[in-house]
């Protein structure tokens, strides 16, 4: 197996690197030996009016761009745009997240203010400036990546990337003529003049990136990465110790058995004779008459209270009693139908009586003491009154 892989790479390696060139001319190139010569040559080529030419140097030669007549590089404006975008995006992010979408009170400080936002604003500005500069320079202005250009893999490229200085005049320049250009280069003292021809792959306009094998490999890698990521994020980081969110620990769950306690129950009950905070027992259990006589609704009739009552009524009461108290709730077929809340009996009940029924239960209706807090029960009473009034409205209840 390993031998096979090694052999594969050997074979791959030994394949002829030089692609056969077509006979279509891309450009004429010339090589010069010193920086002074390239300066003079670039200046002359530019002066003759050629537009599609370029100088190639192993390092940036000072003021060569002036000799070539290159315009002011656009990187600056691109970077500036990126920076301004970063600045406003960072501010917008902090303002929206911190004061609009989810305002959080932190030490009583304002949800958004400038001084504590400065560090992140600054970093955002720098970050986007950096991205804009690099992307703008490499991709927008220099049109990279361009791995398969006609000029790559030539002797010319080998020289100018190392120790020589070159000029190329492209064949599609308006003034191009092979003999004239060659003559010009010779008169400028070029040490080597070479025609560069297109590679077949340049003309078919197919970059190796789009070949099928490469794309299949990419898809394969993406699929494997997706599967690994899925398992990492959903299995490994959720269920494997120590990433189990503390689900697995030495503890006793409610309702489960425990041999530690005498009664083998995992749950503990309150000590006899004590009352847990907020769990005052109902004192009129089974005493409807006293409840009706002594209880009065402690809550004011206000919009807040009634809305609270509506919310709780819709959650706890509406499944049987229906949203409007008609006794036509969603559990109608599975559960005995309760009487309407708009009959004369309930209409004439006092608040305490309704409260007592909710708290104590009546006939098949169980007690809701454990599920609805005391205040919420009283709010429901108010809401039931609202429903009753709405169903039996008089002319004077209508807005004028």
């Amino acid at each position, binding site marked *: 197996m390993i031998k096979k892989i090694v052999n594969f790479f050997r074979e791959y390696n030994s394949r002829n690197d030089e692609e056969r060139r077509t006979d279509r001319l891309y450009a004429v190139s010339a090589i010069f030996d010193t920086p002074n010569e390239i300066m003079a040559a670039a200046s002359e080529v530019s002066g003759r009016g050629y537009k599609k030419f370029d100088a190639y140097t192993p390092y940036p030669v*000072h003021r060569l761009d002036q000799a070539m007549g290159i*315009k002011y590089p656009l990187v600056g404006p691109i970077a500036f745009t990126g920076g301004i975008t970063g600045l406003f995006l960072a501010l917008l992010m902090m303002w929206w997240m911190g004061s609009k979408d989810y305002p959080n009170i932190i030490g009583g400080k304002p949800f958004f203010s400038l001084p504590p936002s400065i560090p992140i604003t600054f970093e955002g500005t720098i970050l986007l400036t950096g991205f804009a500069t690099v992307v703008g320079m490499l991709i927008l202005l220099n049109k990279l990546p361009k791995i398969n250009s006609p000029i790559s893999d030539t002797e010319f490229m080998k020289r100018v990337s190392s120790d020589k200085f070159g000029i190329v005049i492209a064949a599609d320049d308006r003034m191009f003529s092979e003999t004239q250009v060659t003559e010009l280069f010779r008169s400028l003292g070029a040490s080597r003049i070479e025609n560069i021809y297109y590679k077949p792959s340049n003309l078919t306009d197919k970059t190796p990136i789009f070949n099928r094998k490469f794309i299949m490999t990419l898809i394969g890698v993406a699929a494997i990465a997706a599967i690994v990521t899925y398992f990492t994020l959903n299995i490994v980081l959720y269920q494997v110790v120590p990433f189990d969110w503390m689900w697995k620990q030495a503890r006793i769950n409610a309702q489960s058995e425990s041999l530690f306690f005498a009664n083998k129950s995992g749950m503990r009950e309150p000590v006899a004779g004590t009352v847990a905070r907020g769990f005052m027992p109902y004192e009129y259990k089974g005493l409807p008459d006293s409840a009706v006589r002594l209880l009065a609704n402690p809550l004011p009739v206000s919009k807040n209270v009634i809305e609270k009552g509506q919310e709780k009524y819709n959650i706890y009461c509406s499944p049987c009693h229906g949203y409007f108290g008609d006794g036509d709730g969603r559990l109608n077929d599975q559960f005995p139908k309760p009487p309407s809340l708009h009959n004369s009996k309930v209409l004439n009940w006092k608040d305490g009586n309704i409260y007592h029924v909710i708290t104590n239960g009546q006939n098949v209706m169980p007690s809701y003491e454990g599920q609805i807090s005391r205040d919420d029960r009283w709010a429901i009473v108010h809401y039931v009154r609202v429903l009753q009034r709405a169903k039996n409205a008089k002319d004077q209840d209508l807005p004028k």
Partner: protein
Amino acid sequence: MSYDATYTRELPLVTSRADFKEIDQVLAHPTETKPTKGWWIAFGISFTALMIGALALTNTLYFGIGEWGNNQPVGWAFDIVNFVFWIGIGHAGTLISAILFLFRQRWRTGIARFAEAMTIFAVMTAGIFPIIHTGRPWLAGYLLPLPNQNGVWVNFLSPLLWDVFAVSTYFTVSLLFWGIGLVPDFAVLRNRTTNKIKKTIYSVASLGWTFSNRNWSNYERAYLILAGISTPLVLSVHSIVSFDFAVSIIPGWHTTIFPPYFVAGAIFSGFGMVSTVLIIVRKVFDLEHIITINHLEKMNKILLATGMMVGYAYGMEFFIAWYSGNTFEQFAFINRVFGPYAWAYWTMVSCNVFFPQLFWFKKVRTSIPITMVLVILVNVGMWFERFVIVVTSLHRDFLPSSWAMYIPTITDFGLLLGSFGFFFTFLLLFIKTMPLVSIAEIKAVVEGAQPSIHPEPHGEGGHK
């Protein structure tokens, strides 16, 4: 990267006037040959250290941060000390590549690439610590303002969050800076290699760079802009790291001198580390005529200057503690100098302030062995500086009843050792796979590399 040499006459940057081909040869050599025995030994050591760190990390992840020596009241210890130490190391790279570039210090060319790589690896090393010190590092995604099912966002008022933004921005921009510097060099390697696989990798990494002067023109402008934005960035990062401390109310942390003091310390420690590694690398890879004594001497001068800035900060902290009349503040500093951690304080002062004074002597500055000893002491001293700041401030705060001593565990030391292993493993891999001095930049500063004639521009007219 274009320089005007008319302002200053300097010593030649590359001694024994190499021609361009020779520069290619020397700088590409480590990437084109099999690793030497020395490299394997170094790699073995650092990889072992890395594995020890991995063991300590596994221990930490499995059992939790209770495996560390942290306690009440010393809730921050080796984790944060190591974080600040490594972030500090990471400051020299961008300083050398950006600030020295803007000041037209041409000598930076020989060491810039290497220092930038150190920045990247040091910030990566540093990044491990705040993440593991949260206790459940697999939830580190919540450090970023990402939408989540709770609907809540991060706290933008917290310096710890500013830190997340500062460090990640710093890492990204440093990576871009380093990356675009490497693009032309990968193109050089691409044109040199005959190995088809290597060639594919280098072609992709070089993005098909053609050395066209129209590209160089944009490239240089982009490099200048990146240097320009990296300069305030490098100053902001350690300032924001210092806010982690300065914005709290712990005596010994709550001081306004922290941002400049931290930045000076970071540059100091970064240069210390760059020198330490360069002295070895230039010897091992025969780069003595590219990374010259002249470079090391200049770095030593910077060490002397920043060392004294740090010394000034030590003194000024004391003065302010006394001048403020705040008894808690005064106690914190007296406790530092004469308390149970006095040994750490005096290690710090002697390594950072006293010993670097030897750099006043030219003999010391230009002696490699002495420089080596001194820069290692600087590394030690700067680690202790962070230890002193973090631990001595915490271990005795307002309430004497809650005072305690901090004793690191073997896991703490394992992680510290592992951080060095992590850093050096990456550094050694970098040395073998990429040119450790910028080929294009070094060619541009060789004598005779820039033209002596400047013909009148034609065409649409140039800039300036």
